[in-house]
């Protein structure tokens, strides 16, 4: 265990996340993990880590960190204008920090969550097989809570300096976080929608409400009308678009409730979840209905972008 970064200012909500604890859903524990899993994997690969290593997820406003010793980092996901000792730095690339270097962020330009991977992988409490911070239960990550000023972050490995070569994800392979459309397939209960609501689901513009969080993205749009009849509760997945009686859909995200009884009218496909993770309050979006084949194509495109990093 090596202390590598000191938190000067934690930002708005900065937590330790990896790829979560998918095995825990059968016990009612949210899977958790990074909201934008593409950005987390890319950051880790750029920092010379395993894709599932623990990194920082910073929400809407970046932290201020100081290097306690030389280290290698990579910043991916939302663009918060990263700076090293005041100098603008590239994203989606390997960065080297010397002891005493200050990492700050100028301000949010696009997206909602930026990821900072540190060479060696961040340490943290491992709970049910994951170092991800579970805010609901106060378990995992940095004492089960968001970072605070004064916290000292450690890496698991002792490797602090890195590779001679600087890695970068070429711009053409980075996700387009300005894209307003989320690819989705019709959900199990789409037939419960009134015909007009069914049309609106895949054509109307929805706005992300400020009550959105890591559990779900609450949307405001044309009220969708569905048959009111209650369903027997069943297991839910991230990406599911739930329709409560209010008619305003909720897109379930990483810390989603594991079971529920509201109709699921659509499910955002895996390749569009990184984009969904970057939605900020006030952003607009549309659901675009896709086939399984189209979903597969998009998924493979993301896999090959990551493979381009592993192959380096």
């Amino acid at each position: 265990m090596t202390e590598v970064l000191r938190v000067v200012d934690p930002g708005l909500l900065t937590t330790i996340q990896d790829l979560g604890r998918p095995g825990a859903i059968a016990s009612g524990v949210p899977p958790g993990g990074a909201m934008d899993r593409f950005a987390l994997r890319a950051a880790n690969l750029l920092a010379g880590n395993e894709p599932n290593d623990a990194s920082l997820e910073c929400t809407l406003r970046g932290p201020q960190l100081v290097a306690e010793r030389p280290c290698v980092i990579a910043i991916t996901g939302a663009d918060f204008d990263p700076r090293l000792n005041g100098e603008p730095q590239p994203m989606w690339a390997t960065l080297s920090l010397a002891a005493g270097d200050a990492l700050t962020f100028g301000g949010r330009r696009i997206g909602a969550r930026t990821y900072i991977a540190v060479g060696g992988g961040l340490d943290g409490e491992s709970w049910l097989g994951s170092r991800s911070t579970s805010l609901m239960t106060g378990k995992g990550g940095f004492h089960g809570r968001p970072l605070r000023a004064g916290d000292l972050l450690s890496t698991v490995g002792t490797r602090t300096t890195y590779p001679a070569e600087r890695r970068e994800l070429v711009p053409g392979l980075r996700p387009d976080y300005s894209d307003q459309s989320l690819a989705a397939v019709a959900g199990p209960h789409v037939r419960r929608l009134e015909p007009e609501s069914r049309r609106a689901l895949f054509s109307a513009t929805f706005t992300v409400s400020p009550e959105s969080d890591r559990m779900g993205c609450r949307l405001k749009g044309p009220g969708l009308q569905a048959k009111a009849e209650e369903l027997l509760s069943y297991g839910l997945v991230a990406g599911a678009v739930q329709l409560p009686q209010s008619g305003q859909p909720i897109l379930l995200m990483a810390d989603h409730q594991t079971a529920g009884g509201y109709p699921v009218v659509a499910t955002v496909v895996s390749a569009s979840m990184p984009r969904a993770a970057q939605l900020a309050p006030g952003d607009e979006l549309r659901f675009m209905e896709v086939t399984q084949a189209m979903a597969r194509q998009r998924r493979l495109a993301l896999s090959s972008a990551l493979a381009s990093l592993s192959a380096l």
Partner: protein
Amino acid sequence: MPQPRSIQRVRIHPLGDTALLAVLGSRLDTALNTRAIGLASALRKRRDVRQAVAGYASVTVHFDPDQTTLESLGAAIKRLAVRRPKEPIPGRLHRIPVVYDGVDMPEVSDSLNLSPREIVALHTRPIYRVFLVGFVPGWAYLGPLPEELELPRRRVPRTHVPAGSVAIAGRQTGIYPMQVPGGWHLIGRSSVKLFLPNSDPPCLFRAGDRVKFFAAALD
């Protein structure tokens, strides 16, 4: 009496491109739930399945899209689902003390036209089944609740239900393991810990377990 095969048909619905929902039926029914739990545990043994979670009468299956497709896994599930389920192992029996002084007791008593005493007698009568574990850590959906206690959910859900609240809604009952929002009617409270963060699995109740409530004296 065994059901004809036609009723047992499983419907497969995609949940995006990496999960599906296999629906066995639409009734709150112990036999259907036993089949769902059996199907989920059979599916968890497959290499192309990452996780399978039984609902009341369904299974949510997370699969590896590099190893299978929706169509081929769906066909495999249909084959598995018509197999005669193994004799289920009887779940563990939990005896849970409840203080029946919930804030909704007067309202529930009015709506059902039953005295609080009758409500307690009815609520403590059955041995409930744990139909599924989920929603929030430690929560378990228990039932079936006696018909006499059936009420729709509260029109306006509470933003904060205190941990330990014993609640009813529809033909279901349950205990809130932590402070969360909720729309069920609060009839009592229990001090039994349901979320066990330092155990694996981190919850007291498991699908298929049985639960008997008994009235405890005011503390």
